[in-house]
């Protein structure tokens, strides 16, 4: 990969359909994550944040060199990524559904359940923060993900996976395939064993993802080409993301 000025910086793997297939398989094997208690999922997210903060200087320097943003901004990106991981660690045991008040004598539980395996496609900018922004809420509620990081600067994302490796996140919970993101997005959207997909990128890519998701009618959440401000917490973190990371199962029980 080249840096912002076109100089050689590193090599990155070019993913294809078969890599995606393997990644989806690995994600399916990690289904224990969906049954892991919320407290434990939160602890894991905290560990990731801690391990990232240990290497914060290194990450921010690489982001600065690679993406060409100023030192202040690259530092801000890493700090925000750490904060966001902690933020979702806080949510894991607090995003807890409802007991609905129906017209009968019943307990109607609305249980937020993870989709299972999700596909996440990140835009080119802010390679570290976008990966964290999309994957943290998804795994916080118990999903396993196949993520396509920034096509332009994938290496901060692959570096981030090394952080995951030492944070006792079970293998297969976050899988990363680098390459042409829009092409890989289509493959992921087409895959029948992926239950939901989030796409951030161009409006053309959004359209392709929506179209390709028709097979198993997976829930697709796409940005329609619109660009959210990655540093504005209202736009890129919180309830909206958690809500899109789950589906509600209503369980009706007889009661008194």
């Amino acid at each position, binding site marked *: *990969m*080249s*840096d912002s*000025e*076109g*100089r*050689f*910086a*590193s*090599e*990155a*793997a*070019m*993913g*294809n359909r*078969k*890599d995606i297939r*393997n990644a989806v398989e690995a994600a399916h094997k990690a289904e224990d994550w969906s049954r892991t208690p919320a407290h434990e999922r939160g602890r894991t997210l905290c560990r990731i944040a801690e391990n990232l903060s240990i290497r914060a200087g290194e990450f921010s320097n*690489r982001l600065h060199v690679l993406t060409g943003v100023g030192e202040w901004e690259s530092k801000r990106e890493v700090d925000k990524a750490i904060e966001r991981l902690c933020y979702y660690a806080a949510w894991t045991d607090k995003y807890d559904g*409802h007991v*609905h008040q*129906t*017209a*009968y004598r*019943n307990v109607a539980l*609305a249980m937020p359940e993870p989709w299972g395996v999700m596909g996440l496609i990140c*835009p080119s900018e802010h390679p570290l923060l976008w990966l964290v922004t999309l994957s943290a809420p998804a795994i916080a509620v118990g999903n396993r993900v196949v993520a396509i990081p920034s096509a*332009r600067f994938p*290496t*901060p994302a*692959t570096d981030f996976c090394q952080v995951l490796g030492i944070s006792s996140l079970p*293998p*297969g919970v976050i*899988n*990363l395939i*680098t390459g*042409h*993101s*829009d092409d890989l997005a289509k493959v992921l959207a087409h895959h029948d064993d992926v239950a939901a997909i989030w796409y951030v*990128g*161009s*409006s*053309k*890519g959004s359209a392709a993802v929506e179209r390709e998701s*028709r097979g*198993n*009618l997976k*829930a697709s959440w796409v940005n329609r080409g619109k*660009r*959210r401000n990655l540093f504005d917490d*209202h736009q890129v973190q919180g309830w*909206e993301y958690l*809500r899109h990371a789950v*589906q*509600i*199962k*209503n*369980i*009706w029980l*007889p009661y008194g």
Partner: protein
Amino acid sequence: MSSVGEIFETMEYGPSPEAAEVAVEWLEEHRREFYPFIDGEFARFIDECYFESIDPRDGRTLARIVRCGEIEVDAAVEAAKLAFPRWSALTGYERARYLRTLACQIQKHARLFALLETLDSGKAIRESYDLEMALVVRHFYYHAGWAHLRNETFIGYEPIGVCGQIIPGNFPLLMLAWKLAPALAAGNTVVIKPSASTSLAALLFAEVLQQSQFPPGVVNIVTGDSSTGELIVRHRDIQKIAFTGSTEVGRQIRVETAGSGKHLSLSLAGKSPFIVFDDADLDSAVEGIVNAVWSSQGEACRAGNRLLLQESIYEKVLANLRRLMEALRVGDPLDRGIDMGPIATAEQLQQIQRLVEQAKADGATFWQPSWVPPREGFFCAPVLFGDVEASSALAQIDIAGPVLMASSFRDASEAVELANNTNYGLTASIWTENMSTALEVAPKLKAGTVWINSASLFDAASGFGGYRESGFAREGGNEGMYEYLIPGWERCLSSYDKHEFDLHPRPVGSSARNLKAEELINRAATHYIGENRSRPIAGTALR
């Protein structure tokens, strides 16, 4: 007429027909001719095209209704668009008052609504009146509350705009309520299309809107078949499509709306399991099965039409079921003693008969009660198939008819496996007196709603919707409100398309100075799959 003594002897039901005069009068008042409801009135256009609404009891025409084309749909969308700024600017309290008035008015006309529905769809009056009307009224009341509370509950959220809604014929008015109430509560305006086979209740609803002095243009009702639906789906000025119907059509709509910027919610077919364990209260379970499967002639997509019985009680439950099926009464749906009316349309009846024949040929054990349903009209006797193979068409396709298929399982894990062995995931029902069994199975089922020791319970407070190919969306509850709201700041975002960001990797310029060794970022070009850093399969690496 038998004497009282004889009746005591035979315990036979006598006829108890509901008088349909009010509904017939209403039809006559309109000269049995109906027009789309646009901008607060029944609108006339030149070159109108009509289709007929059929009484499924005898196949006779009930009314002629305009099949809306481009002109009508355009006018409806335009009206909704013009009404949006004012409707969405009302305070939550004001919108709530409109919705509450609507609920009252519907309640006032409940009997007429139920009669019309029964005439139009063939659904037993017991069901259209006792069950459906109560749910409809409740739905509007409940969402009136959300209208009032929207701003403080969904902070920062705004209505989407003009919503296009397309509903099926199995619960004509209930589906209309499920779609309209949350959309209106959120502050959207609507163009809604009822099913071509059951439009009359929606048209009466239009009159009720007028009586409630609902602002014109907020709700527009266009009548027609799938061609009208297509016009709605494709319309440029509609920002949201909500569809309930078959998975096949849902898929077409997914493709059609892809990239159009329209929000989409789909509520699609189901093939719902009804799981009975050997420690269940069998009498309640069997009654639950009968209510779930053969209400609405089995046309409801949520019907538990795949019966899974634990091996040891398989024969016993089927014997009980056969006894109850023998006692089911099929006939004039206006009769209060009738369990099942006719199927809504002739095509649907043929489709059911075709699938039944196919299943017989596939070797499933076929059983039907000894009596024969009325010959005139689209009646269908209930069917019970035993020993159904999990992979057979019968176990996979949504039949939408009074057909139940039974198979057996050994233990909970096999029950879960069989239950999840379709592409759908709408509802499931579990029967056991053992709470641990029920709560072990419930989380493992792929279903949007799981009823424990109950079936077919619905409420406005509990979001209904499917997993997997049964669609994505919830109708009801706070979860259902989000289907009609978007974050307010979303409208003001800039675009990636105009932005210089390159979504594809760039080739390395040969003349560029390479970075110093310590600046080089990564060592090996790999993916991260499972616990491995894995080399790309194609062996190529991006430079």
